[in-house]
């Protein structure tokens, strides 16, 4: 065998050996192919089932679905789609998407727009699209489409249609409800903040925006604590809002007291707040609503009330003190006067002490009564032509002891020509005296007080300036308030109730005028400016005329006094005698009637509760047998009710006085020609 033949034989051998291996490889591949084929058949069955499931899924969905390929051929659809658009089977089977689109376009309100939009979607092939379609029969469809991708390649488009008619109607209702809710929240006076269940802000109404300084848009989504920052009014420590407890407890929570809201701009607002959970239709908590409002004004009013109450208590304490002060010297003077070994000089001195202290008490009580009358509106001015200079003289005379005691210099500047105007001279003098006394009190010894008066066409202006302690800026608005000075240590040291300026203000205002206080501050003196309108003198009333008559010189009257209380009767008798009247005292009714006939009194003062005949009977009989019509029958009684007065007047009394009797008023009545109360009903 040649070399070539050997090589050829070797090659054949290799090739044939390979052939055996290739055959085995082929057999193995065929087995694998068989397995793969079986697997493929299994996959095919699974695919068929998946396709069936997909078809069933398509049919079970609430949406109408149609699928198109790149050539706009229909490659799939469900029955729902056909029903929604009333598409005949023949047309869908033809598979022309454009023909179907035309059929649908005929059913929507804006067919042209519908067609243009479909063309746009098909030509631009956006990944997704969503449109709302309004049909001519009132239904509303939502159309969504998305690219159908296969292995990353755009192979068509899936169009789905959903009937959202009911959803749209609900949305409109919800929008209306929200608008109503928004308008309501915007129109209420309270601030409102709503949150979600996590305490994140969802809404602020305009009041809440204004109070917190956060707009609703800014605050939405923020934690409530960042927007609604509240602290304890007294400690300044942060406190929690009621929203947290409301969400946890599921009930209304109010945290009303002592809470201050720190606004975004740093401002502080006293508030009251409360919160309640918001529940959805199922009752689950979906958030919270918090309502709060500004209580700054109320807190101030409460503080003012507390302050007034405090000042009233202090006033009562002062009043008790001021009334008790004179009692000690009176008691001691009385003891001295009654002492067996007291000399006449000691007795007179004692009487002077008693008289001075009683007058002091009387002034206190007069001030109290006057301020009470002004407050109740029962003080009546007796207007008459009044000379300003005389009034100032009277006031200065009253205040002179205080001015002199502190060695003040008083300068008075008034116009040379007489300045007359309509006023109650006594009250004017009282008012001016109070202002002057106030100046004297609050000026250190050896100070200067300057009183100037001027006349203008429409008003009289009186200024009282001093070099005293002055008034701080914050105290200025309160100097005319009742009891305002009570707390002042200086005032207490000078005595008095601290109602002088309040009384002065009341009297000025009764005259239709104004009084102002000015001061450059503590230690820089004060100035009070009184402006009084110049009423024409012709406007003096009848009552004023009576007051003018009352100012005539004293006239002695015969007075019959009947009272079974002997001490009371004797002291009153002495008082009347001191004023120059002739007084006869009796202690029961029959005796009164007897003396009445003989004594022929101008005035009869009758106690009601007397033995024998009571005051009513005595008055009735006196009235029946009255020899002179001008005699005044005056009841003096502890019974002060309106029906008691009525009964007195029915019995024939002309006037009715309630114990304890104001001696001044009684003396004025005895002096005057005042008409009977049962006609004029003057009140005492």
């Amino acid at each position, binding site marked *: 065998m040649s070399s070539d033949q050997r090589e050829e034989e070797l090659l054949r051998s*290799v090739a044939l050996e*390979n*052939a*055996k291996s*290739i*055959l085995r490889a082929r057999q193995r*591949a065929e087995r694998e*192919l068989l397995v793969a084929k079986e697997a493929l058949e299994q996959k095919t069955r699974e695919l068929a089932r998946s396709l069936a499931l997909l078809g069933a899924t398509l049919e079970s969905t609430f949406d109408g679905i149609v699928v198109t390929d790149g050539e706009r051929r229909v490659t799939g659809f469900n029955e729902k789609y056909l029903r929604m658009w009333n598409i005949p089977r023949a047309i869908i089977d033809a598979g022309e998407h454009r023909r179907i689109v035309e059929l649908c376009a005929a059913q929507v309100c804006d067919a042209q727009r519908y067609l243009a939009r479909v063309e746009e979607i098909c030509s631009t092939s956006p990944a997704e699209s969503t449109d709302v379609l309004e049909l001519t029969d009132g239904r509303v469809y939502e159309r969504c489409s998305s690219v159908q991708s296969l292995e990353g390649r755009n192979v068509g488009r899936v169009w789905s249609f959903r009937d959202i008619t009911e959803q749209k109607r609900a949305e409109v209702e919800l929008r209306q409800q929200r608008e109503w809710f928004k308008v309501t929240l915007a129109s209420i006076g309270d601030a409102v903040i709503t949150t979600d269940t996590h305490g994140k802000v969802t809404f602020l109404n305009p009041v809440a925006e204004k109070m917190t300084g956060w707009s609703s848009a800014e605050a939405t989504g923020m934690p409530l604590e960042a927007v609604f920052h509240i602290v304890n009014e007294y400690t300044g420590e942060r406190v929690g809002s009621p929203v947290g407890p409301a969400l946890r407890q599921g009930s209304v929570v109010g945290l009303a007291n002592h809470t201050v809201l720190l606004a975004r701009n740093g401002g502080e607002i006293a508030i009251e707040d409360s919160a309640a959970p918001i529940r959805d239709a199922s009752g689950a908590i979906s958030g919270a609503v918090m309502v709060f409002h500004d209580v700054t004004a109320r807190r101030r009013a409460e503080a003012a009330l507390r302050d007034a109450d405090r000042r009233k208590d202090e006033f009562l304490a002062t009043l008790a003190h001021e009334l008790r002060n004179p009692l000690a010297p009176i008691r001691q003077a009385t003891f001295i006067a009654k002492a067996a070994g007291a000399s006449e000089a000691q007795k007179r001195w004692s009487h002077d002490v008693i008289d001075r202290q009683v007058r002091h008490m009387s002034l206190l009580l007069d001030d109290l009564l006057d301020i009470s009358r002004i407050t109740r509106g029962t003080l009546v001015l007796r207007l008459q032509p009044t000379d300003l200079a005389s009034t100032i003289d009277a006031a200065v005379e009253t205040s002179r002891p205080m001015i002199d005691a502190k060695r003040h210099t008083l300068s008075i500047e008034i116009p040379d020509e007489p300045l007359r105007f309509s006023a109650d001279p006594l009250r004017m003098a009282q008012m001016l005296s109070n202002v002057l006394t106030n100046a004297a009190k609050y000026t250190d010894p050896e100070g200067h007080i300057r009183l100037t008066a001027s006349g203008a066409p429409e008003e009289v202006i009186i200024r009282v300036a001093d070099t005293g302690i002055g008034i701080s800026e914050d105290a200025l608005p309160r100097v005319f308030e009742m009891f305002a000075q009570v707390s002042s240590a200086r005032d207490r040291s000078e005595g008095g109730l601290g109602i002088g300026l309040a009384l002065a203000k009341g009297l000025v205002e009764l005259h239709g005028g104004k009084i102002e206080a000015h001061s450059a501050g503590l230690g820089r003196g004060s100035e009070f400016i009184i402006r009084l309108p110049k009423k024409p003198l012709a406007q003096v009333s009848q009552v004023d005329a009576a007051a003018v008559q009352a100012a005539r010189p004293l006239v002695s009257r015969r007075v019959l006094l009947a009272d079974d209380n002997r001490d009371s009767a004797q002291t009153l008798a002495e008082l009347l005698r001191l004023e120059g009247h002739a007084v006869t005292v009796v202690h029961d009714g029959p005796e009164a009637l007897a003396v009445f006939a003989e004594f022929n009194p101008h005035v009869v003062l009758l106690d009601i509760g007397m033995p024998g005949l009571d005051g009513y009977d005595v008055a009735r009989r006196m009235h029946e047998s009255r020899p002179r019509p001008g005699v005044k029958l005056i009841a003096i009684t502890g019974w002060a009710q309106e029906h008691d007065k009525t009964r007195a007047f029915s019995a024939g009394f002309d006037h009715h006085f309630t114990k304890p009797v104001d001696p001044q008023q009684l003396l004025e009545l005895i002096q005057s020609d005042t008409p009977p109360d049962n006609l004029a009903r003057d009140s005492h």
Partner: protein
Amino acid sequence: MPIPTEPIGSIPRPLKLLDAIGACGDGMDPRLDPLYEEATRDTIEKLEATGSPVITDGEQRKYHNFWTYSVQGLKNTSPDGFKIPFSAGHTRRMLRLTAEPFRYKRYADQYLDSALRYAHVPLKQAVISPSALSLMYPAEGISGYPREQFIEDLLREHETEVRRCLQKGAYKVQIDFTEGRLALKIDPSGNLLSSFIDLNNLALSRFSAADRQRIGLHTCPGGDRDSTHSADVDYVDLLPSLFELNVGNLYISLAGERDRPRVLETIRRYLRPDQTIFLGVVAPIDPRIETPQEVRDQVLQAAEYIPVNQLGTTDDCGFSPFCDDTSTTRETAFAKIRARVLGTALAAQVLGVG
């Protein structure tokens, strides 16, 4: 649609390149790179100048031949493989595998990297068939490396090469199966040929139908120094087996056949509808340059047997399958190709598909 026409692959290397290879003594010497690059560029330019709608890189970088380019240089091979006798009296000796494992030294897609830089028309890439390389495994076997494992490795390497070419953008991947006729020559019973067909089908089965439409298989009686290694084997014995290959394109030499009608009749008989037949209309081993008219007539003759929409033209074989073959000049090769292109176009006009 015109009648498609494609080259088989190799174009004679420039003499300058061959001289340089000879001087280096090693076709893989890096110093040769510029010359390989220039040869590739020039070949592509000239192929495009022929008007060929599809070209190759002329296999300018396939050292040292179309058969062993993928394993040339492997350390576990020896040059004493089997010997292929050519009718001109010379032989070509293949490599023999000496140890495991069997791996390619290079894949043909790397030639595409270079060629794509110059090409302006679609590029096809030729690769060697697994059946050809299967002959590397020695008859006595390799200890610890059974023949079955070798076959499996061979199939995997072949699949890798084809996939890489497809992924790089090769217009077609042509599997060179010149050993078909050789198999019948070695084993007239046809068993070896069936075995080769099976092996190639096992490789092709790893690709999708779409991929297989871009894969073709070329068979010829071999061509080296103007001679063949198996032209004496009757084509009719081979062709039925060729059509069993699961491939979309068959490149079959025909120009050099003596009885073309007989061959065409056989093709008509076994042609499958999913296959396109590219018939050789110029013969590289024939120094004479065919005229376009001759080519046209061959096509028209073929069209009598084969549906025109399944008919294409090609060269009978590569013009220089072995790189040192200078029996055909580059100019002749380009002229023959130009004749193929023009003749095919003429035939298309006649057939009304131009």
